[in-house]
């Protein structure tokens, strides 16, 4: 009896002392954390994708609260959450959310198997980075998509996949949050984050080939050869610049007129999510009817021969997708 009593008293006393120490310590060494961090954290998607540049969602939440002290959230953007989440965060922090343009990933390569044949076979570990280290890869183009799917393996949202038929990575824009993980994983820098654009429309040079024209022509049937025709038709807006044998369309300057798409002799420029070119075709027919047959033959010929060869995919896609969009 006595033994039990002593044990209970001793243990009780130890517990009491320990509780006292813990209580004092919790008051004395308390670390104050801004309660807003927790609030902001709760609003975030918790995907921990790192697309914002911070280590996970909690890191981004603290960054937001810290930025609130300077009074602006302009440098911060949660790509997966989008504008809605940023507005909620701004609400918590009592600020105005800046209108960040949502971005999506664009794979700048159209070198499918039929336009860019695979001459050799890579027999090593299946990774774009590893294949890229061994040289050109399976095709003749040392800038194009390798199709091993490093981008697909890092995408947390299942938005990018490699099409086994074309062996090119494809982005599902409805799932893409613009976190940029795929762009970082691509050893050839093919994937670019571009503003989503009004009604998801954008005009992009879908090629990354920096070789000279003659070589680029041999390597792939839809390569940019740096001819500069698109630059010429865009003189008014100056949206297109020519780098090393490669055109680039500045999304901020592009007015979506699609003249460059028409001008490109290689079908390397693609307009996404536009309605089919009905008015244009009608105009052509009118012109055909009004002009003499001899004169129309000349402009008609290239349209007829090039369009199906160079860019069959874009034409099809735009016709299929537009009913959903508009």
């Amino acid at each position, binding site marked *: 009896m006595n033994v039990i009593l002593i044990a209970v008293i001793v243990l009780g006393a130890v517990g009491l002392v320990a509780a006292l120490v813990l209580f004092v310590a919790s008051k004395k060494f308390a670390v104050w954390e801004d309660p807003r961090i927790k609030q902001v954290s709760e609003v975030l998607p918790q995907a921990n994708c790192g697309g914002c540049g911070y280590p996970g969602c909690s890191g981004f939440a603290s960054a937001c609260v810290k930025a609130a002290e300077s009074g602006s959230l302009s440098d911060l953007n949660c790509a997966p959450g989008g504008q809605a989440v940023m507005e909620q965060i701004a609400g918590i922090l009592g600020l105005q959310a800046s209108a960040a343009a949502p971005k999506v990933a664009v794979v700048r390569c159209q070198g499918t198997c039929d336009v860019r044949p695979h*001459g050799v076979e890579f027999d090593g570990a299946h990774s774009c980075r*590893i294949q890229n*280290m061994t*040289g050109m890869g399976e095709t003749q183009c040392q800038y194009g998509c390798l199709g091993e799917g490093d981008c697909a393996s890092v995408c947390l949202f299942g938005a990018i996949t490699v099409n086994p038929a074309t062996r090119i990575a494809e982005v599902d824009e409805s799932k893409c949050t613009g976190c940029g993980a795929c762009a970082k994983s691509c050893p050839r820098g093919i994937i670019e984050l571009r503003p989503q654009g009004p009604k998801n429309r954008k005009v992009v040079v879908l090629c990354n080939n920096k070789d000279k024209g003659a*070589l680029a022509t041999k390597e792939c049937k839809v390569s940019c050869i740096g001819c500069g025709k698109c630059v010429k038709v865009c003189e008014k807006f100056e949206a297109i610049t020519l780098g090393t044998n490669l055109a680039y369309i500045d999304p901020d300057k592009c007015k979506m007129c699609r003249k460059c798409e028409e001008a490109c002799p290689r079908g390397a420029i693609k307009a996404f999510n536009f309605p089919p070119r009905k008015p244009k075709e009608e105009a052509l027919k009118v012109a055909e009817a009004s002009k003499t047959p001899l004169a129309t033959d000349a402009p008609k010929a290239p349209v007829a021969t090039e369009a199906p060869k160079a860019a069959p995919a874009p034409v099809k896609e735009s016709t299929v997708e537009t009913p959903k969009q508009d």
Partner: protein
Amino acid sequence: MKTFSIGGVHPAENKLSAGSPIREAALPKQAIFSMFQHIGAPAKPVVKKGDVVKVGTLLGEAGGFVSAPIYSSVSGKVSKVDVALDASDTRRMAVYVDVEGDEWEESIDRSADLVRLEDRPDLDAKTIVEKIKQAGIVGMGGATFPCHVKLCPPPGEKAECVIINAVECEPYLTSDHSLMLEKADEILVGVALIMKAVGVERGYIGIENNKPDAIQLMTEKAKAYPQIEVVPLKVQYPQGGEKQLIDAVIGRQVPAPPAIPINVGAVVQNVGTAFAIYEAVMKNKPLISRVITVTGKSVKQPSNLLARLGTPFSQLMEECGGLPADTGKIIGGGPMMGKALISLDIPMTKGSSGLLIMNNKEARRAEAEPCIRCAKCVSACPMGLEPYLLSNISSQHMWEEAERECIVSCIECGSCAYTCPSNRPLLDNIRLGKTTVMGIIRERAAKK
């Protein structure tokens, strides 16, 4: 018999072209000189379209200290300076020369007379190194590290001995073997020149004992050079690795990077390099040709060819009976460390020690299966690393971990992948990790 202390494997030797004499390959119609024939800064082209060049005319000057000039190996006209597919399987800057005749620069001594070191008392260390640098000599074993850099020890380091790598541990290859049998005297003068250049009294020539004729001949000839010793070595891959060879010959271990062989007092050069040094210093001949083994089980006539640099591999193949019908893979170099080539139009470079044709059956890798934790790769690794672990953490992109596990020590010999019973692509992953980690280290150093 001596060999290195850790790991190693012994693949089937398959030295099909052993004993076949060195044949001179015909001149190509067009020679292509890549400006990337060595490790370090690429050479800068100094010729333009239309220039007339002779054998020995400078085409590209060295692009820095760790770099080497490139000379024309043919005479003719420069047809263009443009990108060309090279042995890296990418398109890089190169000079194309359309061959006309075979005119040589007059400064080159083309006679076959042996010039001994005693005949040229005027040569001092500085002159020798300068001549080597001017001749564009790089490590001919395949690593293509500019030779003069190794011969200029960093301040505070002193070389104690020169070790000549005549191991040729790669299966199939016999170019060094045949060179020793035919040019033993020249090689020994070359070794003496290297020893003089780095100022050492001791030289070793390490030869694996699967080349008894070469060991016997070199030992015989080396009697005239009391400072040079021929060391027969037990056959073990990768004995031709610099660090393994030092361990095998003088029993010293080079610490982990950034330590280099000179830190243990050794300067290692390939036997082909020794011959090139002889020609450069004594004959004034820049590096314009080399011996290359063209081999493979289906190749009609496996041979050792003395070919001019810039000759397309397709032509070398023709000289050996044409490309076999059952070709599955074309490899530049040996089967262990060589690189699969995507085209036969690729021209040979300073580092092309072999052209190996694998048939369909040999070429394909077996399907990779899960690791069974047998640790064969660990016992095979000559650097004492843990390949299965490095491979895993590399494929998970855990670069910090990889750095901690000394991934940069990997010499990419491929012993791990060779020995793996599950056919795992260990080296593929490790190479990715090594390249990435080295990039991270360089970046960090640049920030400091």
